[in-house]
């Protein structure tokens, strides 16, 4: 993992003191709310329905146990005992006091964390593959590039006041686990003739005008990557619209001038930028790269380790996975559903689902956050990841330790075996918390998860990504849902549109609206109806999305509307 050097720490510490002074002046009436609002937003502090909300950055979703414990401490000390992991791989606290905010940022700074780049028209927190450094299908570790982009983008003088916010994702595998082509810039690390480089996609996004990013460059060598991204930003910064917030994102610019013309201008700018020497010195790149070296994996046949903490103690007999496998069906189901292939023999990637039946997607209590930190420290080389699907990953767990990990998770309500199943729902905070929302998202997610609570039923439905947004801004990624739900305001009441056929994976597609919307209970019935159509129509081995793509919208519309 990346560790701050003295410059990183000085920057973050200075920012805390700057904000402390700004808050002091606001509370003393020396600056107005209009003057203060952009300053607090630059530090991730929003005013939501019930209180201030603080969004803390988790760069490319990666953190260690010390940082995770600090997130728990903040939940306990300054909030109401929980946090909400977001679709941007960050965490939000919903009950923050303005007067506490400087102290919170100071606490975060002690563990190399902050809330910079979580709001405003800047380059936001870089997102990435939650399996980075562990995935069996990885070409190169995207965290190195995500970290480089983080350092380049933080307080970048040209790009701190862009026409609109700007989101970048970096992946290093063929499988896209980061919705890369639904970002303003998506970078896929690839190798060509043994040379590492990036395939560049620009102009994707969700929101009110969803678009899939077109490929702008099929290959940029790693040495040129940063300069090329700089050129992409410069063209946007020059021509992106500042007169209309709804047309200010880069996707609109590229849609209006065309990918070919945008590409031509980027190439011209790149030729100029390359002459400026912006790419990192070799020594700096090597410094960053060294921090992402693989951990010291142990031999696959090393005995398992029981887990002991103040909260949970696994039985002393739990020393091997084979006996446990035979004894516990719940564990088997969890292992089959929530673990993924690791590039290192004898290891697995564990996804901790924050989607218990009837729970709030992405929420975790301070105690659960602490437990996940303990497990990371004990079993995963001190690393955790936050996923854009609002789950937590332990990236490097020995297969022999899976049973002990599962036991600890299960005792804390953190072992739903539902990764990528219908109850693994992405949901934005919606109208229960968010001042932009038009409808509540969380109750709909809870009702759907409860309707489909039966594990066998979920597994029979197979991979089914259901995503709910409470407004057109699409924080819940409804455009990318195999089943998407968009909450709207219909004459003062909540109404829910149903969408089908979206994907945020390597087969990226945008979901289409089925027809007229439904009320809160109606949308739950509608989801069940479309799953029944899938079950009736599916061919051998087809996922919901595959069947939809084969048979089209009509059978689903017919079942929904007659």
């Amino acid at each position, binding site marked *: 993992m990346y560790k701050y050097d003295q410059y990183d720490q000085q920057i973050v510490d200075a920012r805390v003191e700057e904000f402390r002074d700004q808050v002091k002046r606001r509370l003393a009436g020396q600056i107005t709310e209009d003057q203060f609002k952009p300053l607090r937003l630059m530090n991730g502090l929003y005013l939501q*329905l*019930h*209180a201030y909300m603080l969004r803390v950055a988790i760069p490319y979703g990666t953190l260690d146990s010390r940082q995770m414990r600090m997130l728990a401490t903040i939940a306990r000390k300054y909030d109401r005992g929980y946090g909400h992991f977001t679709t941007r791989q960050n965490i939000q606290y919903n009950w923050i006091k*303005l*007067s506490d905010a400087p102290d919170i940022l100071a606490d975060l700074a002690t563990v190399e964390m902050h809330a910079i780049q979580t709001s405003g028209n800047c380059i936001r927190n870089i997102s990435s593959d939650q399996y980075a450094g562990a995935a069996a299908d990885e070409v190169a570790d995207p965290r190195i590039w995500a970290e480089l982009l983080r350092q380049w983008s933080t307080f970048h003088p040209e790009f701190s006041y862009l026409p609109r916010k700007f989101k970048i994702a970096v992946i290093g595998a063929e499988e896209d686990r980061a919705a890369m082509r639904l970002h303003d810039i998506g970078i896929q690390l690839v190798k060509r003739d043994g040379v590492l480089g990036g395939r560049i996609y620009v102009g994707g996004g969700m929101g009110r005008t969803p678009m899939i990013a077109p490929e702008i460059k099929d290959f940029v060598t790693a040495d040129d990557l940063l300069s090329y991204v700089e050129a992409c930003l410069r063209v946007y910064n020059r021509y992106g619209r500042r007169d209309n917030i709804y047309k200010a994102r880069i996707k609109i610019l590229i849609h209006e001038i065309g990918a070919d013309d945008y590409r031509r201008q980027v190439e011209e700018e790149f030729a100029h930028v390359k002459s400026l020497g912006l790419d990192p010195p070799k020594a700096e790149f090597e410094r960053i790269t060294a921090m992402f070296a693989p951990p010291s994996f142990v031999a696959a046949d090393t005995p398992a380790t029981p887990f002991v903490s103040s909260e949970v103690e696994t039985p002393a007999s739990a020393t091997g996975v084979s006996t446990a496998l035979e004894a516990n069906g719940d564990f088997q189901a969890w292992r089959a559903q929530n673990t993924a292939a690791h590039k290192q023999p004898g290891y697995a990637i564990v996804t901790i689902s924050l989607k218990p039946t009837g729970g709030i997607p992405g929420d975790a209590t301070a105690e659960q956050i602490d437990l996940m930190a303990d497990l990371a420290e004990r079993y995963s080389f001190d690393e955790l990841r936050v996923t854009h699907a609002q789950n937590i990953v332990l990236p490097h767990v020995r297969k022999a330790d899976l049973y002990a990990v599962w036991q600890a998770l299960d005792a804390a309500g953190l072992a739903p075996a539902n990764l990528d199943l219908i109850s693994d729902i992405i949901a934005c905070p919606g*109208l*229960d918390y968010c001042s932009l929302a038009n409808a509540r998202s969380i109750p709909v997610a809870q009702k759907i998860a409860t309707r489909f609570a039966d594990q066998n039923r979920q597994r029979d439905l197979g991979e089914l990504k259901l995503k709910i947004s409470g407004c057109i801004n699409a924080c819940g990624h409804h455009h990318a849902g195999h089943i998407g739900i968009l909450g709207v305001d219909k004459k003062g009441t909540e109404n829910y549109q149903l969408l089908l056929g979206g994907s945020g994976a390597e087969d990226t597609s945008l979901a289409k609206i089925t027809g007229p919307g439904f009320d809160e209970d109606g949308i739950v019935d509608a989801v069940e109806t479309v799953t029944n159509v899938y079950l009736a129509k599916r061919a051998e081995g087809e996922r919901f999305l595959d069947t939809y793509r084969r048979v089209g919208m009509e059978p689903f519309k017919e079942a929904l509307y007659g």
Partner: protein
Amino acid sequence: MKLLTGNDLPTGDVLWWTGSTWSRHVEDAGDVGDRGESIARVEEGARRVNGAYVIDATATPEGPRPAHIKDRVRALGPTVRPDLTLKPADPAAGSWVI
């Protein structure tokens, strides 16, 4: 009726204008008629409220009920966490929002 609402500056708590001061309980809110904006200017200037705005509401035997669901959510708290609302002892309080 018209209500004036906003947030407490240091805490962010939701506030309602009672006619003479601010309350955290919508039941205490009073009809501001057409005086909402002028009250808001004075109160924001004195930093007794932040982001004040006027909303429509109806008078009910239980007190004012904001016309829009968003303000009813603000008045009570998140419907998905009854324990964090202003009426934690009443799990059914969320039905007032819907």
